[in-house]
């Protein structure tokens, strides 16, 4: 009898609904992060860097100034958007690991429209909205491409989205290398392989208008999208259909839920969110497109999605953690000479301990 051992306890119900909301589910991740941080500090001490100096640099880089806080949050929104996309596609049992490539094509599209789309004179904020829309469409097409490969020829989306990421990243490299594409006019042999800076009107408006606290409209946009994705997954028929296809594509097909359409929708939405993340990076932070534009943001977003256990609040929590970690890590490298590699190691430790903790919570709740 398969029946009776599947009665989730009320605690398990809470977690599956709200991610980190239930009590043991909150405590254990905090302990996991603390444990990883302690190991990280031990490693810093082991390579001969002063722990207080490193800690000071880390705190300075994360919470030390309004600028640091805003930069960390802006970064977190990028991770969160990619994470939402991951969670959305994962509801249909699809694993989108293509955030990096989707960010890249989003960045390319946003740059192209911002620089050459004659949008800078447009009213009503269209100047910065149109490049974002272009990025969304580009990302959606990039995601849909993997979906079409999956439904037409059965290519596993893990493989196709990953390989499309490489293509996206190299496409970006090509765009900024070739003067015929997005590279800025070559005035001397020392001109860097990057695009021109996008016009001011196409940059994302700052919430405060104060450059020492550069929090941009990406934050409210991400919050709105968080609500949209959460509602879509839990309250709509579309969300139910994604889940049905994810759990049993054959039975769903028999019940008239199109597998093809569902898969294409899910991966296109994930790609759209990745593309938008690329637009936020370009129009809110970097302003020029250059080689190394994303530097692994797509993968951090993927990890945020993985750690969230399918909940939007989980994605937000993990994204904030990673956003601040990255900022702190950069500052630790610059100020306290802690190699970035070590920050990556600590981040990896957090992922492993969190994943282990998640497993622990699930076992504990099952008892």
């Amino acid at each position, binding site marked *: *009898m*398969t*029946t*009776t*051992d*599947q*009665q989730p*306890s009320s605690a398990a119900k809470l977690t599956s609904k709200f991610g980190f909301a239930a009590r043991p589910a909150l405590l254990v991740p905090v302990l996991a992060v603390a444990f990883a941080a302690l190991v990280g500090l031990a490693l810093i001490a082991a390579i001969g860097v002063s722990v207080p100096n490193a800690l000071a640099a880390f705190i300075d880089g994360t919470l030390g100034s309004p600028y640091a806080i805003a930069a960390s949050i802006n970064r977190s929104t990028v991770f969160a958007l990619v994470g939402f996309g991951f969670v959305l596609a994962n509801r249909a049992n699809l694993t989108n690991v293509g955030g990096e490539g989707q960010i890249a094509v989003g960045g390319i599209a946003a740059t192209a429209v911002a620089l050459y789309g004659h949008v800078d004179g447009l009213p009503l904020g269209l100047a910065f909205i149109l490049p974002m829309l272009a990025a969304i469409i580009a990302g959606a097409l990039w995601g849909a491409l993997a979906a079409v490969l999956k439904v037409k020829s059965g290519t596993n989306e893990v493989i196709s989205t990953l390989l499309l990421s490489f293509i996206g990243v190299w496409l970006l490299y090509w765009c900024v290398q070739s003067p015929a594409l997005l590279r800025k006019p070559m005035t001397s042999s020392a001109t860097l392989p990057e695009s021109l800076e996008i016009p001011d009107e196409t940059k994302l408006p700052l919430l405060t208008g104060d450059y020492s606290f550069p929090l941009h409209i990406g934050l409210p946009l991400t919050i709105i999208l968080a609500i949209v994705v959460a509602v879509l997954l839990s*309250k*709509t*028929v*579309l*969300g*139910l*259909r994604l*889940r*049905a296809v994810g*759990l*049993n594509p*054959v*039975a*769903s*097909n*028999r*019940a*008239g*839920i*199109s597998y093809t359409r569902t898969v294409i929708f899910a991966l296109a939405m994930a790609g759209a969110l990745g593309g938008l993340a690329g637009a936020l990076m370009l129009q809110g932070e970097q302003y020029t497109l250059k080689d190394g534009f994303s530097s692994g943001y797509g993968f951090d977003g993927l990890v945020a999605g993985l750690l969230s256990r399918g909940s939007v609040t989980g994605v937000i929590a993990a994204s904030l953690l990673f956003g601040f970690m990255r900022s702190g890590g950069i500052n630790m490298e610059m100020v306290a000479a802690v190699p970035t590699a070590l920050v990556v190691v600590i981040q990896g430790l957090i992922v492993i301990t969190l994943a282990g903790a998640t497993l622990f919570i699930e076992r504990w709740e099952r008892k």
Partner: protein
Amino acid sequence: MNMASAPAEIVAEPLLSLSAITKRFGNFTALSDVSLDIRPGEIHCILGENGAGKSTLCNLIFGVHRPDGGSMRYRGASFQPSGPADSLAQGIAMVHQHFSLVPDMSVVDNVLLGRQRGLLNRAECARQLEKLAVDYGLPLDPFAKIEDLSVGERQRVEIVKCLIRDPSLFVLDEPTAVLLPDEIAALLDVCHRVASSGRAVVLVTHKLAEIKKIADRVTVLRGGRVVATSDKPAAEIDALVRAMIQGNVDTLDQSAASILGLEPVKHIGHGTENDNTPKTKVEALQIDGLTVRDYQGVTRLDNFTLTVDRGEIVGVAGVEGNGQSELTAVLAGMMTPSEGKIYLGDINLTAKSPKEITAAGVGIVPEDRHAVGCVTGMSLAENIYLNRLDEFTRFGFLQRSALEREAAALMQRFDVRARGPGALFSSLSGGNQQKAVLAREITLPNLTCLVAAQPTRGLDVGAVAAVYSHIRAACERGVAILLVSSELDELLTVADRIVVLYRGRIMGSCVADPDRREAIGAMMAGQPQ
């Protein structure tokens, strides 16, 4: 027979004894105060409807679950298995309801899985298999791949996997649900031989014919309690059934009774007035020259032509694997036919999508409930309306309360027992799952044709009766019914007319008359009559 729990006369020191075992899952009590003895050399049948706690009992003995109360003794010592591996090591082997074989591997490799470390000694294992084949009548080619074996042969592999460990206690959880009549007879013979070598056999079943044939003793479970025990089950079968279903055998649906082996097969059809007052024929489903070739070019269904009228039940008989799966898959829109046409009245349904087929008014009860019929990870209500979710949508939002209200109404109408419409589908017993799938398909607003494949497989008495009463009621309303089943008795009882499939072709057809049983059997074996 002792109603309730007065202990039976001690014949031998029990091999395994359970006293006052209780097992709860959350708020649900699966077993309550269950006491029972298994003696060496006996075949002890556990009888009960789905959800009565039979499988839970097996899982406790096999160490999958731990009891919440009570104690077990095995070979005179306290028995608290830490897991299946522990039970196996102590000489308890179990054949589960669902096979656990690796299809791509040979028989020998499947038998060796988990038993040997280091180098595999396939030759030695093959020799052991040959010995078992002689001792127990279990012939198997040790080097055949599982995927090339029939269902009956696969089960033989499962049994051999157990016997090769030389167990003292052999537990079989509903082993006959998927077998053909001869295979069932062979299996019961194996049980007999195992028991006569001094081991104990625990056979979980809800088929009374099997109990009549081989049970030494029977324990009847209902709602997680022991409600009856018997030392002479063959003589007390009626009382056992009454205890199992808590009702009177006389009121039992006749089709269900004959399928269970309680009564000789009698043709019932779907309504008395049909026998005297022939209705005007209205063709509903027309299948014309349907041919299916698989990707290797093998013809699976060959020029299948059949018409089903409204208000008629046509049975498709045949040994499984003779094209029935392809036929239902094509009718369900899950497979594209190589040739041929399907019409529902004037509507061409050839190679249409499942959605269009449903919209046209064709209900499908698929043979594989879990793979095709439902999404076990979703709720009962979601499953009941999986194909009509649009009716519960406002601005894209799911009207969950309306959905659950409607589902609750259907649950009541179709007697689907679950904790509520929000219960996880996988928490339902097989019979209730099937009733839910049937409820979904049979309540399609414009149902004109119902295709039901093996709709009673693995179901208990009550559920079988319920499924047929709903199918007959639909037929009375003028729905054309195509019933695909490998249980000939079932077809003879329920259908108006039977066509026999053999290697994808129609071998012949005749009215469903129990006197034609032998002729139909010969056609199933490939001999035209």
